[in-house]
């Protein structure tokens, strides 16, 4: 065979996926497929909608308008009003939820009689459906037979019944209160889990070092809580900024424009004015704002952990 060219086996190419990776890909594929259908497709479709002037009162004409819908939003006074209302609502809800969650977590992290029952009861508001929560608080605030009026009048703190949700200065805060009532338990639970992981020896060392209760909270608990706090802040911000159900049930954006938030604006634009193009564009703006805010929070808090 002299002179014949022998084909030398070249270096064996490594398969693109290893055995484990291939198996993992097979197992993950159904989930990815479902997600593509139920998440990716609607996201891409709504983006397509946001680039067209789609109004359901003239369903057959849907011209491509590029980013005109987006530009129109920023010229719309209602949008900026909704941004300010949403900002107030989100800041109040997230701040109060986080603060209360820290206090409740600190309380429930201590051993005392009834601590287990209280921990279980804590979860009741969280387990209550949003619609039920909205209706419950609407009844509590009711101007004629509401519990809040009855309580305050009987305590002598109020002279006569008043329409709480009809007061534009209070509406957002009262809806925020209903949101806090429902959202705080989960936040507290997340913080309790983080707190349980703090080694007891750290507290003991701090006691021996001379730290009082407040100093122990600042130097031991708070630094250890940061991962939990970041989770709570990001999650609560994402939830609050997009809140819709409480506004639908309790005030429908009113009185006047007192609770006219971004979610409510999107709802009005899409399902009442039937302008799906601008509605989709607004949804995209809201989604991007939520994403950017969460990213900023994670970066800001992540550096401090």
């Amino acid at each position, binding site marked *: 065979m002299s002179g014949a060219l022998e084909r030398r086996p070249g270096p064996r190419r490594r398969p693109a996926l290893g055995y484990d990776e291939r198996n993992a890909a097979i197992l993950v594929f159904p989930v990815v497929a479902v997600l593509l259908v139920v998440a990716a497709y609607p996201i891409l479709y709504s983006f397509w909608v946001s680039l067209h002037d789609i109004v359901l009162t003239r369903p057959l004409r849907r011209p491509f308008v590029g980013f005109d819908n987006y530009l129109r939003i920023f010229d719309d006074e209602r949008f900026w009003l909704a941004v300010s209302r949403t900002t107030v609502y989100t800041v109040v809800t997230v701040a109060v939820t986080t603060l209360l969650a820290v206090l409740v977590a600190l309380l429930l992290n201590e051993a005392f009689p009834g601590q287990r029952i209280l921990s279980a009861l804590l979860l009741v508001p969280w387990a209550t459906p949003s619609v039920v929560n909205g209706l419950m608080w609407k009844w509590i605030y009711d101007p004629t037979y509401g519990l809040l009026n009855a309580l305050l009048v009987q305590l002598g703190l109020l002279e006569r019944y008043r329409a709480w949700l009809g007061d534009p200065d209070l509406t957002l805060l009262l809806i925020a209160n209903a949101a806090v009532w429902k959202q705080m338990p989960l936040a507290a639970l997340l913080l309790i889990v983080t707190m349980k992981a703090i080694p007891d020896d750290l507290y003991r060392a701090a006691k021996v070092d001379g730290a009082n209760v407040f100093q122990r909270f600042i130097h*031991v608990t708070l630094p250890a809580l940061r991962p939990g706090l970041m989770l709570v802040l990001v999650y609560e911000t994402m939830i609050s900024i997009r809140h819709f159900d409480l506004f639908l049930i309790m005030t429908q954006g009113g009185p006047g424009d007192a609770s006219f938030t971004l979610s409510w604006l999107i709802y009005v634009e899409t399902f009442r004015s039937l302008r799906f193009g601008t509605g989709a564009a607004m949804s995209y703006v809201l989604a991007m704002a939520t994403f950017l805010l969460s990213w900023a929070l994670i970066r800001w808090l992540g550096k401090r952990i």
Partner: protein
Amino acid sequence: MATITCERITKRYGGVVAVDALDLTIRHGEFMVLLGPSGCGKTTTLNMIAGLEEISEGRLLFDDKDVTWQPPHKREVAMVFQSYALYPNKTVRENIAFPLQLRRTPREEITRAVTEVAEQLEIGHLLDRRPSQLSGGQRQRVALGRAIVRKPSVFLMDEPLSNLDATLRLSMRSLIKHLHHRLRATFVYVTHDQAEAMTLADRIAVMKGGLVQQLDTPEGIYARPANTFVAAFLGSPQINLVQGEIAPDGSFARGAFRLALPPGAAQPGRAVTLGLRPEDVGTLAPGLARLEARVDLVSPLGSETHLEVVAGDDVKLTLRVPKEWRAQEGQVIAVGVDPARLHLFDATTDARL
């Protein structure tokens, strides 16, 4: 410096008594080791001295001052934990400085004290690192630094070396001993490691079931254990304990096994437990009792050899012999035992006779 006096201090958790009417005086500048197995009450005792556990009954005095109800930071104690308990978010510098900051010490003084301590413990190059960036040994040095920086009169150490590997443990042990010599403060050290206790302590309190079984110097505890528990807890390999009785001729007897005892060691017929430390055997010589046994297992350790032997019918013993002894498994050997070095305990109470 401070003398610590525990006057019948008791700690109860519900119906469980963790420490039972403990009377213990720890002298000025003494290195006291509380030694015992898990659950014996040694850490609870330390925590009561620190003020981290309330005392259910009794009084605790520092010098002549009653500190039973004083919070930890008013007792001028420093504590080192098994888990190091370093603040994870603070740098080494901030960890060491923390107790001084809490006492509102001037900044320049804190800087000076931290630098001095870091030099003493050879951790000056680690001052800007966080605990997660340190090895176990380095973390324990930082924990020691945090303890010594404020010059307390009492140091409390809760198994500080248990999380370290064997080599590091040895070097840290020397470091702690040097620290004690230099600071001359009162040290209370909790451990279940007999080697740590023997090498570090001025005195050892061996504890079991919330009670002090024996309080003595390391040499005293090893040479004259108060009961079988103490005898078995100290020494490696463990002391040989054989149950039997005193024969009419005054020797120890169990079946065919006989061993001569010092004259009048105990009444003939009395049920006793014999204690024989593995190293208390040697070549036969006049004045030594003869112990004949069949070698069951030979374990050479390089510096010495451990023999597992069977004497009499069923008496299994471990002997520590020089490495030059070339014993074969199955061989019958005869060794000499100094009767004066044997230990006798009452078979019922386990107390030393």
